[in-house]
């Protein structure tokens, strides 16, 4: 092989790496723009849907308007089943597994007795489709546009 061939190959190789980096940057840019568009076009929801999966695979379900301030208390009532109750005041001495605070059109998980506390650390949700999930207790808190959305949202996990 001639020296010039080696040099031109080296130049081409470098150019390809530069192109690769441009491609990677383009991907990051597109996802950044997508995030921006999603943020800007996001619509605030008007209802919060709370779903608890009991140990016998039966779902306990409740829906509350985001416009009223209040607390949703999820408590274990024995035999691995849970109850969902709505209170206007939160009494921290009550034995609850999860407590969701609804205020200013937002919902926030303020208390959970699960070990990882991922749900408590999740930021308050207010836009349609946003959710807080507490995996250890099988609790999902999802923002919906209206109550009619409730059943159309149950994705089949198998299809993923």
């Amino acid at each position: 092989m001639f020296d010039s061939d080696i040099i031109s190959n080296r130049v081409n190789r470098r150019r390809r790496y530069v192109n690769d980096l441009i491609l990677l940057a383009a991907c990051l840019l597109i996802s950044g723009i997508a995030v921006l568009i999603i943020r800007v076009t996001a619509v605030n929801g008007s209802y919060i849907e709370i779903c608890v999966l009991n140990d016998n695979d039966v779902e306990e379900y409740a829906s509350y308007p985001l416009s009223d301030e209040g607390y949703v208390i999820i408590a274990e009532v024995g035999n691995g089943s849970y109850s969902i109750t709505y209170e206007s005041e939160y009494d921290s001495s009550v034995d609850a597994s999860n407590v969701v605070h609804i205020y200013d059109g937002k919902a926030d998980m303020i208390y959970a007795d699960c070990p990882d506390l991922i749900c408590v650390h999740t930021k308050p949700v207010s836009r349609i489709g946003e959710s807080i999930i507490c995996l250890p207790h099988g609790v999902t808190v999802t923002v919906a546009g209206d109550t009619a959305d409730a059943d159309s949202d149950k994705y089949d996990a198998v299809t993923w």
Partner: protein
Amino acid sequence: MIDMDIRKTTSNVAYMGLSLALALILSYVESLIPFNFGIPGVKLGLANLVVVILLYICGWKEALTVDLLRVILSGFIFGNMSMIIYSMAGAALSFICMALIYRTGKFSPMGVSLTGGVTHNIGQLIVAIIAMGTARIIYYIPVLIICGALTGAVLGFIAGEINVRIFHRERS
């Protein structure tokens, strides 16, 4: 000349058989690793490694054959019908894009594989939107693009190194 053609065909058939077997093993390995970034639908895409290598050492026809066969076979062995449809959409879209990017000759295996990773996720998301009848999951797209780009780039780098070190191809 004819002798060379036959030799080339024979070696391609051997490579294809070997790659298909390896792709199936990698699909199996992937199904064992609970590695999903906490996001549904995001996978490593190990089998794509084989497709990228084959694209470079045999050609697009051979790579396409192995890609489609591994989707159908791994779907029947490890998954179900809906998994085949999802994988097929991802594999078809990513293969078309990878072949086009490869043909321009302006990208290294890393760029080719990166394109494959991103478009594979986009293809699956399109099927998911059609299947679920909701466009709401389009919110996943930024995360799917970034994950696809990163896993694709890493696998593409590995594919490039394998081409150089094992198949003694010129570094491209």
